[in-house]
């Protein structure tokens, strides 16, 4: 051992042991960098660094028309692309006071729920893999494939389908749409209990997840943690209930609330939401009314000058769109309040004091999608 190396060994425990998790790390689900300060295996504090894939979507929106914005919103939270589209569409429809046909509302709601299911399935795969259960990943993806096939058949693309347009839909759904959804519901009702047997009930998993990452209701509200992560802390934040859009006021469903406030509570919320989504789908799929797939819109959409605000519930929480219009075909200022942005920054609060392995579980339970943070 050379002289230089010996001098590098620091004496004393006061020194902070700083580790970078990410941007190139298997469990940060994207290019997120967590600067973690460790003491032994325990996290003293952590510092998220974002911006590795900042694309300036808000700036780009100022130069393009409302129809064109749709394809950009797909790329924020790519796992709930449809809900993101819907938010922009509804802002435009609100501003122009266009009444969209009933059929569109039904189809949009069905797609919302399918998208939510697909997103939760992917979260389940990734969460299992974060905790080291590698098989969950393949089972989840196997079942998600069925939903993506439905999307592909109707819209031609599997992930980023840009299917909404202000006033309605791009084109009508495929004739097989209802049948395939019914097949999928039947299939997935059989597979979902397997998820529980494989992971939820598992004693190792429960010990890993219970009591980890405690986030009180006050913390959740203060940090604006919404979606299933917030509802795991008993924070009632489901926009589908608070301000119903689509046909959410016509279907029966429960807002899932858990009081556990820990990683396991957030896990249970998402699992229960999958069942809820299935039941919403069942209620809607047979009742799609006939009619147009789009309302009459002018080819160039110009919003009257003013400010518009609309919220939707994506798979990860509350997406708010705030538009300032000056009467042109482009928005003057477009602001997306994305759920993951708020969900990420609670990490330091809820992960400090737990082990490094728990940190991974906590970040998995928050279900972060990094492009949504960076926009």
């Amino acid at each position, binding site marked *: *051992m050379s002289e*230089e*190396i010996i001098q*590098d060994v620091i004496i004393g425990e006061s020194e902070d*042991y700083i*580790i970078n998790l990410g941007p190139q*790390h*298997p*469990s940060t689900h994207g290019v997120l960098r967590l600067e973690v300060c460790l003491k032994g*295996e325990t996290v003293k504090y952590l510092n998220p660094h974002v911006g590795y894939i900042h694309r300036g979507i808000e700036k780009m929106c100022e130069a393009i028309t409302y129809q064109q914005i749709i394809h950009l919103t797909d790329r924020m939270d790519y796992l709930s692309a449809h809900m993101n589209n819907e938010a922009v569409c509804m802002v435009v429809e609100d501003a122009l006071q266009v009444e969209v046909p009933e059929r569109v509302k039904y189809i949009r709601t069905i797609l919302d729920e399918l998208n939510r299911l697909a997103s939760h399935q992917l979260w389940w795969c990734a969460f*299992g*893999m*974060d*905790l*080291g*259960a*590698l*098989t969950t*990943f*393949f*089972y989840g993806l*196997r079942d998600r494939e069925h939903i993506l096939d439905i999307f592909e058949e109707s819209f031609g693309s599997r992930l980023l389908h840009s299917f909404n347009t202000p006033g309605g839909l791009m084109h009508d759904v495929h004739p097989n749409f209802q049948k395939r959804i019914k097949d999928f519901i039947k299939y997935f009702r059989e597979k979902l209990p397997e998820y529980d047997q*494989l*992971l939820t009930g*598992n004693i*190792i*998993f429960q*010990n*890993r997840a219970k009591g980890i990452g405690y986030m009180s209701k006050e913390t959740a509200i203060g940090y604006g943690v919404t979606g299933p992560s917030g509802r795991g802390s008993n924070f009632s934040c489901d926009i589908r209930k608070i301000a119903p859009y689509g046909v959410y006021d016509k279907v029966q469903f429960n807002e899932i609330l858990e009081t556990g406030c820990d990683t396991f509570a957030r896990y249970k919320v998402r699992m229960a939401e999958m069942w809820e989504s299935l039941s919403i789908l069942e209620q809607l799929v047979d009742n799609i009314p006939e009619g147009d797939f789009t309302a009459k819109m002018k080819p160039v959409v110009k919003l009257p000058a003013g400010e518009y605000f609309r919220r939707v519930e994506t798979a990860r929480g509350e997406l708010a769109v705030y538009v300032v219009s000056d009467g042109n075909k482009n928005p003057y200022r477009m602001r997306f309040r994305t759920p993951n942005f708020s969900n990420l920054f609670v990490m330091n609060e809820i992960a400090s004091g737990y*082990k*490094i*392995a*728990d940190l*991974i579980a906590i970040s998995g339970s928050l279900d972060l999608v990094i492009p949504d943070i960076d926009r």
Partner: protein
Amino acid sequence: MSSNIYDFSKLTGSVHAWLSGLMSSGWVTFTELVLVGLVFLLLYALLGLFLVYLERKVCAIIQNRIGPNRVGKWGIIQTIADLVKLLLKELIPIRKSDPLLFNLAPFIVIICSFLAMAALPYAKGLQAIDFNIGVFYVMAVSSLSVVGILIAGWSSNSKYSLIGAMRSGAQIVSYELSVGLSLLAIVVFTGSMQLSTIVESQANGWWIFKGHIPAFISFVIFLIASTAEINRGPFDLAEAESELTAGFHTEYSGIKFAFFFLAEYMNMFIVSALGATVFLGGWMPFHIGNWEGFNHIMDFIPSAVWFFTKTFFIILIIMWFKWTFPRLRIDQLLTLEWKYLLPISLFNIVLIAFIVLMGWHF
């Protein structure tokens, strides 16, 4: 007794006799050493490659996939292709690492697993070295690989590696106790630590059946503890890829990485073989009491086939564990050992001693 099982000592004896006819005794010893070395080298490499292939296939089928299927029929030479690829990969030196220890670590892990191979009884009469403390020897040598892992993690000068090595140190060291105590159970039954004697003692039934419930408990503890000792899932904290990217071998590249990988799989083989030998009768065929006819039929299956069947049975169980369970956390891991497995196995030893004292075992 099972006299009609083919004894490999006849084969080795005739080879020895043939060689003695050709050359002087010094040369005979030398040739035999070279032969044994070559045979074990071949066995080691083939087993390692096959185990990697097996694991990929097993996990693929569990996960509804096909697994490797492009290189050769059913992808059977996929691992060889991978090995060649790793051989041709650049060995990246790490700045500010400790070069001596950094290069030494792969040697240590391979030597440890290779030495343990020497004492395993593969078939009747086929055993390189039959120690009178065989159980103890295999246990000791295979647990030495923790030194290699610690050195690897420490010398890399990477934070992930260091944490991985530390974890692995605490983990292997703890589970060593349970492995020892569960093996001790059978030593008490047999009254010998020699592996060949232990196998012979199971001629009329394997210890897992003969030793009542305590032997079964020992077997389960052995399975859990040895899975932990070889750093496999769900105890693969040292290389938890979702936390530490690759743990102690993060900085190793090319063939050096391949050796850690190989050693991990060979350690799996060694503990499975040890478990099969001690609990499941090793190369001893499946015999039931005095059913002469049945036992006779069983004897026709070659002893090596019995040994490898049992070993791969245990290997499959260990793989099944890995591809089902999530990973434990370091404190849960140590709690499991110190607060559950250790007291249970201590109590279990007393129970076994009592059974032996009363002569209740068969």
